[in-house]
């Protein structure tokens, strides 16, 4: 079983590329800060899980793939949607329960979907997205080989939390992916806790999650997920290999969520010292440091990038505030494609109608 070592690729990238990653991480951080505020102000309801601390994972993984490579994740999904290019206003409007939301206000925080950017959700049941990820990979391979008559050329990224590795669906998906040579990479965002349960308390071989991959004959790597350059360096060759060989991969992505599992979590299961230790490894601060010391980027330049993201998010909140709630006619829409009985068929959200990248192909 090969375990790839990570070459230093990101180091050779131009400063603009790294600044782009910084911008994306700023955007996610600011989006989540304002999400928490809006939740506390009761503008957002339901379950809400923020991505603060884990930004390097989504940004680095997305950078290592193409925008038409399918991506699917669990309910901590805001970062993946934004990293893939969803306009923040559509995500914020979704959480505000507005018609202009990415899912017309029918999904909420846990169900960000974006067909134009091959973002297949946003799924609420722990581990449920792992067979879907296998299926997306099955489909791209089938499209390329059976329908197109060529070679499989897409890679699916399937994100899951460390708690999901104990679900049956995950093991079934891994077995199927290994058995059918599916081009999917299962990325465990291992933040050490499934809600309030430390990984050692719920998971065998917690010190070596790669064991779960070896059991299914799947290549695996471990990546330091608090550093976006390290994420990219680990993911890029792994993604390229998956694309080339059409074989699945598994990543133990070591990361940390700075906030609670959800908005209602008092975090009594971990110490303040532990939190402080990880906050010192903040992926944003880390990249800022690299840019400052190795690329001579001025603090003021980075601040102005952050300010621009703040403005975008502020406008997203205003957009969400002012957008109309879905009309009651939406209740019976999108249940069935074809209208019958009380059901009125389906229509696309405003987000796709306004997206030049969307050609209707994903549906």
């Amino acid at each position, binding site marked *: 079983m090969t375990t790839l070592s990570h070459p230093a690729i990101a180091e050779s990238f131009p400063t603009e590329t790294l600044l782009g990653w910084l911008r994306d991480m700023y955007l996610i951080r600011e989006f989540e800060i304002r999400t928490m505020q809006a939740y506390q102000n009761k503008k957002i309801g339901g379950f809400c899980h923020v991505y603060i601390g884990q930004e390097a994972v989504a940004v680095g993984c997305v950078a290592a793939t193409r925008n038409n490579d399918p991506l699917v994740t669990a309910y901590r999904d805001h970062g993946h949607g934004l990293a893939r290019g969803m306009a923040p206003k559509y995500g914020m409007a979704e959480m505000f329960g507005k018609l202009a939301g990415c899912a017309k206000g029918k999904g909420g925080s846990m169900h960000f*979907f974006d*067909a134009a950017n091959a973002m297949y959700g946003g799924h609420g049941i722990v581990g449920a997205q792992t067979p879907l990820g296998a*299926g997306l990979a099955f489909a791209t391979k089938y499209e390329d080989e*059976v329908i197109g008559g060529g070679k499989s050329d897409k890679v699916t990224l399937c994100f899951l939390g460390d708690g999901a590795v104990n679900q049956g669906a995950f093991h079934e998906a891994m077995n199927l992916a290994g058995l059918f040579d599916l081009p999917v990479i299962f990325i465990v965002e291992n933040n050490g806790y499934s809600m309030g349960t430390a990984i050692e308390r719920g998971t065998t071989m917690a010190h070596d999650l790669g064991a779960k991959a070896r059991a299914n004959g799947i290549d695996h790597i471990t990546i330091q997920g608090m550093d976006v350059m390290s994420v990219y360096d680990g993911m890029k060759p792994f993604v390229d290999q998956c694309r080339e060989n059409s074989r699945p991969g598994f990543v133990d992505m070591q990361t940390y969520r700075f906030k609670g599992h959800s908005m209602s979590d008092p975090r009594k299961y971990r110490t303040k010292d532990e939190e402080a230790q990880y906050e010192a490894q903040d992926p944003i601060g880390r990249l800022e440091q690299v840019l400052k010391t190795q690329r001579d980027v001025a603090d003021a330049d980075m601040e102005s990038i952050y300010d621009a993201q703040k403005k975008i998010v502020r406008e997203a909140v205003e957009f969400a505030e002012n957008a109309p709630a879905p009309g009651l006619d939406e209740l019976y829409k999108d249940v*069935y494609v074809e209208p019958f009985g009380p059901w009125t068929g389906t229509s696309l959200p405003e987000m796709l109608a306004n997206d030049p990248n969307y050609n209707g192909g994903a549906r």
Partner: protein
Amino acid sequence: MSRQIEYRDALNEAMSEEMRRDQRVFLLGEEVAQYNGAYKVSRGMLDEFGPKRIIDTPISESGFAGMAIGAAMRGLRPICEFMSWSFSLVAADPILNNAPKMLYMSGGQFGCPIVFRGNDGAGGQLGSTHSWCVEGLFSNVPGLKMVIPSNPYEAKGLLKTAIRDDDPVFFLESERMLGDKGEVPEEEYLIPFGKANVVREGTDCTLLSWGRPVNFAVEAAEELAKEGLSCEVIDGRTIRPLDLETIVRSVKKTNRLVVIDQSWSFGSPGSEVASQVHAACFDDLDNHVHRVHSHDVPAPYAANLEQEMLPNARRICEAVRSCCYVA
């Protein structure tokens, strides 16, 4: 002489024709390829379509049902075979939480054009865990369609429609009927969803059923005719969509309805139809809607107990006589 083929071959023809017509269609499930189908429904299909489109899966219903749903989200049109619908219960999360809700949760972005199909219903002395009639459980869920064919002709025409449908279809076959022969024309035909079929006309009482018990209802109607009771028998064909219009038209004529539904009575298609008919035909009914279901017990093994547990012609006759005040 018109052509007679088995129910299993009608299913096979429907799948094969649709796979020839549309490359996006593929079949996956346990033993569907090299074994030629656990019940020989897919025999010969591996030879014709090859292993990339006829796919043997491991015994992993949650995994392969979820995988098929992921493929459907990209616009492929999987036919996902459950050897038995009883085994679909370990795939409850993907088939109930993902397939029928995907279009809604994604705000219209991702549909799920998939067919789940397999054997439903008791009758083979398989014991409780292998004898599920899932109509009652699954018809509760909006976003899915439910189809139950009653003979080879229905099986072929309805399965072709199911494969072309853009929404998830739960297609409930009957292992007890796989060897039944019936008339199936050579030329192509499709049977639309939501259009019930009046298989026998009558004036005294309407009998509504779906799937295998439709045949018991016909048997009962023949028996009751000897007693001077004229029964109209309706094959509902699909539970979602439900063709209330045809049912109501018949009830307004006969003023009596007996629903025969092989699932358990509590919260079932039978109870739902009774409720809707009571609302729509309140002034037309000469008696309350009578229902014949499986008895409210787990499926027993012993042959005599199992036969008594299921709807059968004798129990249907008793219900009709009661409904018509002929005791």
